[in-house]
């Protein structure tokens, strides 16, 4: 126990002495959490649309103004022919082309039917998909309005009478920030913990101080604990700052018990730090450690369920995400913060994360060799 005391004293002194690193640990995630959620959301705005109006009638004008008034579209071309509009798409000035055929108004009134043509620039898949469906629903609504205009007296509408009304639970305004902030915080915690721990022992190897440690009778698990605890404390500090920022800037207050959140983070940090320390025991230079950690971080983050839903990934990717601690953290963060899940709900996540923590740290202790 005394040994641990001396190790902790040393680590904390070194951490607090290096003011630049300390500021980076605390300030960088804070800034990222303040800025990134403002930009990272799924909503697609500013879709550039070019409209080819072959009809030039009252109705076609009305449709166009409905589209531009929706706020999602920016009219970048009002062309006489599809060819001209397509040129705009080729120059990337238009994401969508809507072609209104000639006789649009006439057919709508007389034939009760009219086809329209939408061309989508699918280079940006998300934008194309969402833009296309926004546009279709605007056109559908437009159609409904016209029916009402044309047949006010009849009383019987020919539009479908079944309508689906959905309510969004747990995030009823579909506020993307509420969804993204806990996820981004999860990633920041992971990055800070992972990189700090993976670089630390390697740094001692590079400087040569590890040699002086290895020649002492220090116990291996003491040494690893001496590295683990300071970063664990730092991780908790960063997490607390993150929660404060989510509350002060985004007004996000965890609906669930905050104690549950801290209990999970406590175990989670052990697993991430253990992973970093394990990498650290394998590498000889900080560069190696950095690259290996970077490789895993990319996998963890992209398959973590922040940007894309894990449920819609291919089976092999879902299998990988079962071994990805980040996916458990993101899911627990959202469960507790948005849904108010209790300890009982997150118990499976906690159990698996605990196993990660145990296995990774034991491996780190085993793989740290005082005698080469």
């Amino acid at each position, binding site marked *: 126990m*005394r*040994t641990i*005391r*001396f*190790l902790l*004293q*040393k680590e904390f*002194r*070194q951490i607090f*002495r*290096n003011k630049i690193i300390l500021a980076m640990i605390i300030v960088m995630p804070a800034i990222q959490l303040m800025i990134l959620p403002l930009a990272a959301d799924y909503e697609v705005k500013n879709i550039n649309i070019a409209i080819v109006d072959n009809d030039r009638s009252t109705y076609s004008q009305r449709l166009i103004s409905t589209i531009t008034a929706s706020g999602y579209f920016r009219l970048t071309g009002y062309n006489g022919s599809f060819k001209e509009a397509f040129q705009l798409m080729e120059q990337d000035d238009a994401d969508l082309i809507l072609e209104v055929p000639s006789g649009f108004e006439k057919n709508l009134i007389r034939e009760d039917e009219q086809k329209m043509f939408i061309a989508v620039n699918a280079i940006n898949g998300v934008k194309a998909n969402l833009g296309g469906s926004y546009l279709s629903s605007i056109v559908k609504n437009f159609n409904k309005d016209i029916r009402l205009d044309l047949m006010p007296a009849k009383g019987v509408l020919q539009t479908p009478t079944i309508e689906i009304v959905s309510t969004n639970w747990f995030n009823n305004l579909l506020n993307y920030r509420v969804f993204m902030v806990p996820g981004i915080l999860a990633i920041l915690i992971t990055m800070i913990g992972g990189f700090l721990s993976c670089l630390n022992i390697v740094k001692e190897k590079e*400087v*040569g*101080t590890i*040699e*002086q*440690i*290895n*020649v*002492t*009778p*220090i116990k291996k698990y003491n040494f690893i604990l001496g590295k683990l605890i300071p970063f664990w404390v730092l991780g908790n500090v960063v997490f607390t700052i993150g929660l404060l920022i989510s509350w002060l800037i985004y007004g996000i207050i965890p609906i669930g018990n905050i104690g549950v959140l801290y209990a999970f983070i406590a175990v989670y940090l052990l697993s991430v730090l253990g992973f970093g320390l394990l990498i650290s025991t394998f590498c000889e230079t900080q560069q190696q450690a950095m690259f290996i950690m970077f490789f895993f971080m990319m996998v963890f983050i992209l398959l973590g369920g922040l940007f894309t839903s894990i449920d819609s990934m291919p089976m092999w990717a879902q299998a990988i995400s079962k071994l990805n601690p980040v996916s458990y953290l993101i899911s627990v963060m959202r469960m507790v913060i948005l849904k108010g899940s209790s300890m009982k709900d997150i118990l499976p996540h906690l159990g698996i994360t605990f196993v990660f923590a145990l296995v990774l740290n034991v491996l780190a202790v085993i793989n740290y060799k*005082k*005698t*080469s």
Partner: protein
Amino acid sequence: MKDTVIKTDKLTKRFGDFIAANEISFEVYRGEIFGFLGANGAGKTTAMRMLCGLSAPSSGKAIIAGFDVYKQTEMIKRNIGYMSQKFSLYDDLTVLENIHFFGGIYGLTDKQLEMKSKALIERLGLQQEAKKLVASLPLGWKQKLSFSVAVLHDPKIVFLDEPTGGVDPVTRRQFWDLIYDAADRGVTVFVTTHYMDEAEYCHRISIMVDGRIEALDTPKGLKQAFQVQSMDEVFYTLARGAKRGD
């Protein structure tokens, strides 16, 4: 009777095809200053790392301070001090913090730590620098400090790997005063060096060539055996035959 603290028997370290230390056998006695000489690349550091339990031998036997070098490395580490070629105290800790840290992990009590660090700082004349970062000290002082830290816990044996490399003659002289002090307290000193004047200060020396120990005797005995006037000449005669080196 002489008390043997280091005894090796055909101790060997291989790295693939390369034999860094080839069947080295010798004994070192309590309180002795034992010089371990050899050209660059002769295998001195490798041999010393095996004796300290930092590197596992490929074959052969070695007993250090009564403990087996294969099975009891942690017991060996409890009883030795080590100062590596590369300065390896913490640059970002102060002089006092380094002393406390290393003393602490060797299990010294708070009282011992306080007494010993005070005595050490006085002995080295570092009163002004005690609270300064080690990084700001000149090399000579760093070396004296790391030696003092290596013997802080009163080990039975202290291993010094080229402790005076790059240090000025005056500081080297002071460094050797520290070594004699330690030897007087009964600490066995195992030291590698490239300076032949330092070799003369040792009680006995061994000279390694290409991984083997080619000579082992007192400085006087070696000079007589090679019929030369100085240790320099003994060294040249032996090292000239070396095939490896840098």
